[in-house]
């Protein structure tokens, strides 16, 4: 790919190792070839989810990949165990997005010249967008067998009862 440095195709190795160390036992070590392979696996995962989410986005004749597209893609590709914790993250993220304009300015300046402009077309969603039924928001604890319980139960118990996936879908344009 022209203009794309090989370094930019992978997540930074320091971030990858830091997250792995939190999961691995204290005495565990990681071989160098394992580190490189994990880096490639992570990038492959991002491309995999992105392609599927974008496919749904285009099928509905939209131009902007949305959070719902991502959640839908993970359900379809078999990573439905991630859908519930990510819905909680998304809910919290939308609350922080409602903060003063200084926060938006800070996030906007993070990538001023990037190709992707998340908020330049707030009206690109169809009028009936918010009425789509998303099955992935249904709570299904039995499908999270492999996911650590402490992650979803620590400090987020109050969210589950009052979580409304459609309450914050409509956002104010900049």
């Amino acid at each position: 790919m022209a203009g794309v440095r090989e370094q930019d195709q992978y997540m930074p190795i320091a971030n990858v190792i830091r997250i792995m160390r939190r999961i691995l036992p204290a005495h565990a070590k990681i071989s160098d070839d394992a580190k490189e392979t994990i880096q490639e696996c992570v990038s492959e995962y991002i491309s995999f989810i992105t392609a599927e989410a974008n496919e749904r986005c285009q099928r509905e004749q939209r131009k902007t990949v949305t959070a719902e597209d991502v959640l839908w893609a993970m359900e379809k590709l078999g990573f439905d165990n991630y859908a519930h914790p990510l819905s909680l993250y998304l809910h919290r993220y939308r609350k922080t997005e409602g903060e003063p304009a200084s926060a938006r300015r800070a996030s906007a300046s993070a990538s001023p010249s990037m190709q992707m402009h998340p908020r330049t077309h707030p009206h690109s969603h169809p009028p009936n967008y918010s009425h789509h039924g998303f099955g992935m928001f249904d709570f299904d604890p039995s499908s999270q067998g492999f996911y650590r319980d402490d992650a979803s139960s620590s400090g987020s118990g109050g969210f589950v009862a009052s979580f409304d996936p459609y309450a914050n879908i409509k956002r104010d344009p900049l």
Partner: protein
Amino acid sequence: MVMADEEENGVSIQLEFPKGRVKKIMALDKDVKRVSSEALFLVSRSTELFLQFLAEKSAQVAIEKKRKTVNLEHIRVAVKRHQPTRDFLLDELPPPSQAAKPDKPTQPAGRPKLDPAPRGTRCIDQFFRKPEPENTAQAPGQPPENPAQAQSPENPDQDQAQSPVPVDES
């Protein structure tokens, strides 16, 4: 565990991966035109969950094999055990021959030594036979005693076999 690190009152929920890098990787797909900030956030967080899952399963495999170092083969086994991950990732992993395998395959069985006796060798007991029946005994005697010939020294036999000839002539 991860949520404990987040600053709930901060400007934004802290992400482990830089958003710019995630954007670049997503943009490698030419069909992708625009990505909302929420979608970008979800992909970043989802990638963290995937990485944690991969690390956890690889560590389990390493523990099962009594190893303290997670290597390529442990990642491969962990990927194989999860069908969704296996579907998109197994073909991307390096081939098994390059992986550092802690369990080496058993060596092939040693070849049995079936070397036939070289030509011209004779039985060790030929020296003690009479000159006349020696001619008739060579043909039937050699085949059944071939294995025994392999164990006997060959050069002394040849030297001893030549000495009776002059005696017969005189």
